[in-house]
Each structure stands twice: as structure tokens, then as C-alpha cells.
């Protein structure tokens, strides 16, 4: 039994994927940052379209973009987020396997894969965290229910 066997049979839709912030294309970087802080999200999806049900994904803007393209680049805050985002990000469908998602992330060196279904609906962000959560739930005895401090030993016997 290895991890790959499990990950091949688990669909992305069966994992607990991360949430995301969302802004329309053209939103200034400053407002995008405010949205991400308010929602406490490290990923923001940039979309086209007004109707919430029929938005089109155009780009992804993450904390890494903040590091590399915003924080010490003068004037960036007032530019539209489109200039700092990654255009047409690689996405994955909900019925793809977790193993496929991992492979895709490795191949393209990305940490956040938007999960998009056949109708274009944005469902969440696949990350390594989803795999960590899966493992914790899959092996509760080994992982979830570990003694809290491995170096702490009871000094005397105690009943009750």
C-alpha cells in the first residue's frame, strides 16, 4: 500500500480544497489585496463577467505575485491586477484524480490549481494542503491522534 494508490482513486471533488478570493479583471492591485486580506485568502481568482454564475476565469493572483511583482515595485498598487497576475492559469476538473493534480502541479511548478467544472464554475483551489488533510483523516491513529508533546513524559502514575 502506498500513497499513490490512494491518490489515484480519490477525485479532487472528494478532497477538502481551499477557498479563494475573487475580483473582476481590471481591479486595482490595492483593492485586490484588500479583498484577499478581508477573506483571509492567499489566492485570488481574476474573472470576467457580471453574473456570479457565469463568470469566466482569466487569471490567478497569489501571495507569490505580491512578493515578486508588488511589494517593492513602485506604483504597482494602483495598476490593474491584470498586470501582476498569471494569465490563463492551469486548472483541473473535479473528477480528475488527486494523483493527476499532484503531477500537474509538479510539472508546471505551481502550488495552486483552480478547480473548475465542465460548465466553468469555480469550485476551489487544489493545493498540497488538501493532500495533508486527506492523509490526516485517512490515518487518524498515526496522525490525528498523536500525543501532543512527544518529549513530555508523565512523572508519576495517576488514576481516574
Amino acid at each position, binding site marked *: *500500500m502506498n500513497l499513490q494508490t490512494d491518490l489515484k482513486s480519490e477525485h479532487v471533488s472528494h478532497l477538502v480544497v481551499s477557498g479563494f478570493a475573487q475580483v473582476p479583471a481590471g481591479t486595482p492591485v490595492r483593492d485586490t489585496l484588500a479583498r484577499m486580506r478581508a477573506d483571509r485568502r492567499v489566492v485570488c481568482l481574476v474573472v470576467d463577467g457580471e453574473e456570479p454564475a457565469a463568470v469566466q476565469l482569466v487569471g490567478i493572483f497569489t501571495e507569490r505575485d505580491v512578493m515578486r511583482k508588488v511589494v517593492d515595485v513602485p506604483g504597482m498598487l494602483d495598476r490593474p491586477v491584470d498586470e501582476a497576475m498569471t494569465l490563463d492559469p492551469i486548472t483541473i476538473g473535479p473528477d480528475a484524480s488527486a494523483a493527476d493534480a499532484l503531477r500537474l502541479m509538479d510539472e508546471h511548478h505551481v502550488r495552486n490549481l483552480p478547480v473548475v467544472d465542465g460548465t466553468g464554475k469555480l469550485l476551489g483551489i487544489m493545493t498540497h494542503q488538501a493532500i495533508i488533510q486527506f492523509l*490526516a483523516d485517512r*490515518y487518524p491513529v498515526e496522525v*490525528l*491522534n498523536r*500525543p501532543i508533546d512527544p518529549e513530555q513524559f508523565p512523572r508519576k502514575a495517576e488514576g481516574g
Partner: protein
Amino acid sequence: MSTVATEEIKLTRKDFVSDQTVRWCPGCGDYSILAQMQRILPETGVAKEKTVFISGIGCASRFPYYMNTYGIHSIHGRAPALATGLAIANPDLTVWVITGDGDGLSIGGNHLLHAIRRNVNLNIVLFNNRIYGLTKGQYSPTSRPGTVTKSSPMGSTEQPLNPIAVALAAEATFVARSIDSHPQHLAATLERTAEHQGASFLEIYQNCVIFNPNEWTDLSDRRNRDDSILYLEHGKHMIFGKDRDKGIRLNGFTPEVVSLDEVDLDEILVHDATSRPLASILGSMEFPDYPAAMGVIRDVRKPDYTGELMAQVETAQAQRGKGDLNQLYLAADLWTVEEREETEAREITPSSSDFDEMPITGLDEEYIDEMETPAEVLSDFQDLLVTSTLAALEPNVPITMGMRSSLARTIRQMNRHNIGCVLVTDEEDRLVGIFTEWDVLNRVAGLVDDLAQQRISDYMTRDPMSLKDDLPIAHALNLMSLHGFRHLPLVDDNGQPTGIISFRDVVGYLNEALEEE
């Protein structure tokens, strides 16, 4: 009423962790419940000083020691009674009762029933592992018929109690169920339990890893648990299954599992947490005949006991004035108990020899094999989780920054090395903080005018959790899954950073491990 200053401070999980050594067996489901309780309590907004945990006797009942709140480890089965008194005497308190299937349903069954029936404002959490764990493996009031234990060598012949049905029989105003191995569901259900006014009853299916380890396997197995659990949501259809392709329909008074391919959605039951008959039906759905109903089964509002009782006291005092306890004592018939001459002490001789000569029946021998169920065969992967150490991940040498470094320099360093996280050290190179790209997004970008003028020590997270590299990988997984840490620093015995590991490192290593087999 004056406001206590402490109530306004935003508490964190750490505020609820006590300094006591946790004495549960490694792998015990109680750890998961403790972690989720400590996680949700800050969210409820109740001050530590206003929170009390009361327990009886048993493994679960050690809970109050581990919570940094008030707590009483009380008498076997009597936690609900003690808690009732406390809730009445001080209605400002949030009182939690922690009990188990033995403590709550056998030894203290009576007390539990009446605390629920009276709708005392308590949050009662019953850890159900269907076994007596602390006394080393006897069958409990929730053990299934046929359960072979030390006290039922030929299998239990008793009909078990269904805790949900018991709570409903006492007309509980809030009844819910969750399971230790599903932390997200458990946290959400604990929060709902805390919110309810009046007696809240939460049953948690909990794994006793030593004496009853396979009791909940079908419900806890991550790969197919969604096929075995019906997650209840008020106002939503009762649909379940990994692919959400099954539903619950009523056939007369009997619920039945149907496939959504064959049955229209409008035939599927819709959950209504205010419906008493529906609660009974859900409570009666026993796994494996049905999926186990999880979540809030019943949630209604009724006057709570303290309010009703105190209203009566106020009315009585308004009519007749405040009473005097001494007068009350003296008002009734009085006796004086006088000392009598001592009677001759009765002699009791224990005849232990009787026991020594008791014949050993063939029974023990015959059933001993059945009791000693062979240990579950662990997969290589499970073995890897607990035997492979963090050193095996070959962690990257960490990029460290001194506390006095400017934000500008730190961010340049992070970008140069293309990393999302640096460790911050003091003059003696000991780890004092961690600074990540989330901190940049959350507290720096667009908020700090001159990056060169600001020190990293004002923006980092202080005293991050750190690990030694001789710990098993499972330990890092535990911290990452419970707290969502994306990076964990590794330190040596002097507290100096030796490495840093991320989600990606752990998943990558585990994914490649055992690949050849």
C-alpha cells in the same frame, strides 16, 4: 453589568491549552476531540474564566486537566448533577460536561437523563467508543450484542443503548452527532453545540485504539466514509454518498436508502431540525443498515431550567421577602442525636483461601483466543509515517534573518532564493520568529511606506512551533493538518534552526516513498 476587560481580548487556541501532560494512549481519538475543542473555543468568544469543564470518571473524563479553563474531575457518572448545580448557581458560566458511554449511560445514566430533561444550560459531550477503556476493556452499555470482551467472553447478550435515542427520550432541545476522525465536521458540530441555549447533547463516535479499535472503521475510513455518513443540514435534502448519488426516502414510517438515479429529488426527505418525529427516525437509523446520521439532528429553543427556576425564586422573594436559611433549619421538627454505648464490633474474616481453591473452568481457555484479537496488520505506509523521521525529508537549509533586519532586505532575500518563508533568529542564532509571504500580503504590501525603515521583528510571527528532526513524519502531518501550518521550522537542541519543511516536501516525500513496490 460591568464588562470584564479580558472578554475583549481575542483569544487563540493556545490560550485553552493547559500545561498538563496528556495521558491518553497514542492513537486515542480523544486527542482529536481535544484539538478541535481547543480550536473552536476561541471562536465562541467566551472568556476562559467563564468556561468550566466538568467530567466524571473514565478516559474521556481526563479532559478538564488539558483545558486551560476552570474544571472539575468529579465523581463517576455525576458530572451532569454537579454541572446542573453550577449552571444554576452561576448562570454566566458556559458549562461543558465531558462524559463517556460508561460514565454517562451506565454509572450516571440517571443524572444524564435528568439534566437533559430539565434543559439545564449545559453542553454535554459524550465520547462513545462502546467499551470501558480505563478499566481495560469490558463491554459497555453501548457495546453491540455479541461483542467479546474480558467481561463478556462469550459475547455480550445485552441490547445496547442508543445515546441519541436516550437524549431524545429526555426531550433534548439539541441533539447532534459527529466522529473523531473527521476534524472539520467535528469542529463545526462542536461550534453548534456551544451556540445552543439549554441542554445540548453531542455524541462523538470515538476510537479506543487499544480495546476496541475497529468499532468505527467503516465510518472513519477516509476513502469511503462519505458512503457511510449522512451529513445533515437543516432545510437540505438528505443526500449522501461519495458521489452524492443516494438519498433517504420515507416508506410509511420507515426510512429507506434509494438511488437518485431511480427516484425524483422531491421524494427525498428534507432535514428539519425542529421536527421531533424526524429526529426519532434519524436517531433510529443504525449503521450499517443505514448511513450514520451526523451533524445537528435536533435544534429547538425552549426555556432553560435556570431561567425558569430563578424566575420562581424572584416571584417568591417579591411576595414573601428574602428567606433566612437558619430560620428554615429551625422551622422543621428537630431531633438531637445522642451518642450510644458502643456495641461489640462484629468480626469479619475474609476467607481468601476460598478464592484460591476455586476451580478454573474451561471457559477462559476456550474463549481466550477470541478475546485476543490479532493486532491489525499495518500497511508499509502506516509504518513509514511513524518510523521515518523528518531528517529523511532532507530538509532545505533554512534562510535565516537577524531580528534587526529590515523588511526591504528580508523581502529581497526571499525573492532572491525564491522562497515563501524565512526564519528569524536572535543574537545567538536561536529561532525567535517566522516570516512568510502571507505576512507580506497581510501586513506589508500597500500598508508600509518605507520597507527599509521597518524591522522584521515587528512583522514576524513570534515563537513559532518548531520540531526536532528525529520526530516521525506523522508528527509534522499532525501539526500541519490541525493548525494549517504550511511551513515547520526544524531546530537543534540549542533552539538553532537546522531546516524547514513545507506541505510540498512532506507530500512529495510520501508520494515517492514505497513507489517501487
